[in-house]
């Protein structure tokens, strides 16, 4: 009988840099994703108006 490896709690690395080129913080990544979403909604609205 072997003891199960308990899931290892992780150190608090929530503020570690994302390691994505051009982004120095997770906040910047979230702002980018949010901005992309806004642009997408605008693009879809224009698309609707263009062909409606």
């Amino acid at each position, binding site marked *: 009988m072997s003891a*199960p490896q308990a*899931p*290892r709690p*992780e150190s608090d690395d929530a503020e570690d840099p994302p390691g994505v080129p051009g982004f120095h913080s*997770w906040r910047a990544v979230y702002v980018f994703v949010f901005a992309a979403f806004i642009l997408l909604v605008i693009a879809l609205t224009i698309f609707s108006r263009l062909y*409606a």
Partner: protein
Amino acid sequence: MNGLDWLVLLGTMLGIAAYGTWRTRHTDNLNTYLKGNRNTGWLTIGISVAATQASAITFLSIPGQGFESGIGFVQNYFGLPLALIIVCAVFLPIYRKLGVYTAYEYLGQRFDRKTRLLGAGLFLMQRGVQSGITIYAPAIILSTVLGWRLDLTIVFIGVVVVVYTVTGGSAAVNLTQRWQMAVIFGGMVTAFVVLVTKLPDDALHVAGALGKLEAVDFSTSPDRRYTFWSGLLGGLFLSLSYFGTDQSQVQRYIGGAALREGRIGLMFNALLKIPMQFFILLLGALVFVFYQFQPNTPVFFNRVEWQRYVDGPDGATFRAFDERHAELHTVKQEKLHAWLAVRESGDAAVEAAARSALVAAHKDIETVRKEAKAALTAANPRAKIKDSDYVFITFIVTQLPHGVVGLLIAVMFAAALGSKAGELNALGTTTTIDLWRHFRPLAAHDEARNVRNAKIWTAFWGVFSIVFALVVSFGENLIEFINIVASIFYGVALGIFIVAFFCRRVGGTAVFWAAIIAQVMVIVLYNVLTISYLWYNVIGCAGCVIIAWLLQAILPRESGRNELPAAV
């Protein structure tokens, strides 16, 4: 389907399943079995998250939505990017920090045993119901259109997915989902390219003129099913609940080499999901355009069902519908060509008149389709009158070349297997960790026994879903049915987690009873109101949080619980 189609279909499906089984056959570590390999990267996590969400119904039903109602369904996903940002910023770091196997373990640490069991129970209940649908939905459509036996199709899908999911657990699920998504993307892009080659240059204008390209509706009416606001707010709550508290998704991203991998995998989905859904809906809208130029367009796309009534005692009635639809379709084509001829003439009045005539002809056709469906219901009140799920598969088998047909059927199977595997993996994990291990704490120290039990519970849920799919019959639009079931339960589940993360003063007893009351309230309201089902996510969540606050004000303060795992 000919030999080439069968070769492509069986080669891709069985090949991927066999590869996943073989590569992960020695998985005997509980952490790897439940969370996947520790070195899993962001791309694998991102693909796994997408594959778990994208079931076969996504690729059968959503083009049908595009065909029937246009691309407005895309608004349903507007809350998703925002939800994923919240999951990345709040939920994921806490799950990783505590090293939990399931989201409900967190509830046990934050609140108490009964709240953990309630959270796990809500998940097992709604996901257990859905587990039958995720096999049944593609099986009923594929078996109807391709003439296969429904029971054998269900058993085939179920057995294949059970074999590799039980063998390799999360490691096998992650590995196979990568290849299945490759098949899905390859197949859908191929279908899109072939479709575009069959369309006239004005295809998008035709779709737009007939109301299929209204992607965004800013109307504030609560009766409109898909609007920007219901999609943003209701979709936010639905997505937050699905990605943040549903174990089938949580399990996909809590593993991995580091917190960063899970976060980037989720952000990958936040960027990908809306364009992907738009693409699938647009495909459906363009299939609609394709059929506008075809001489023989069916009045009802579930041809097998329709033919049964044509050959039945009231056959004359249904043949009359066929004839009337054919006549009106010819008239509509004349109006369509007339409009296209004057569309760029520069004479706005002539163009508007031709367009109005086309829209009127289209409405006549829609009226006949509605009357035909009403006749089906009159002949048999249990008749399945929603034929939009059959539109895309009908297009595939009748219009695409051999080889591509096999590839597109493989897309449906790949999606069915990928989402089913994630689901079974989560059901097995939750049952093992939150129920079996919870009630047999001493056995929890035996690694081999834990893995063995996780495999047994995964197999149990696999067999359960196969049997469930074999004995029940679901109706109407399947993706809506799944979303409705989810919306009824998800809001309350999310409410429990919102209280856990953000309401530090509220204890387990208050949130437990608040969740019960809110769940009953949602079920009652669903039977009374006629609002968009997405709003039940908001109502359930808000109800749970508010009632928990109120109950906590009158209940004695609980002490001794771990206060670390709250976000604030």
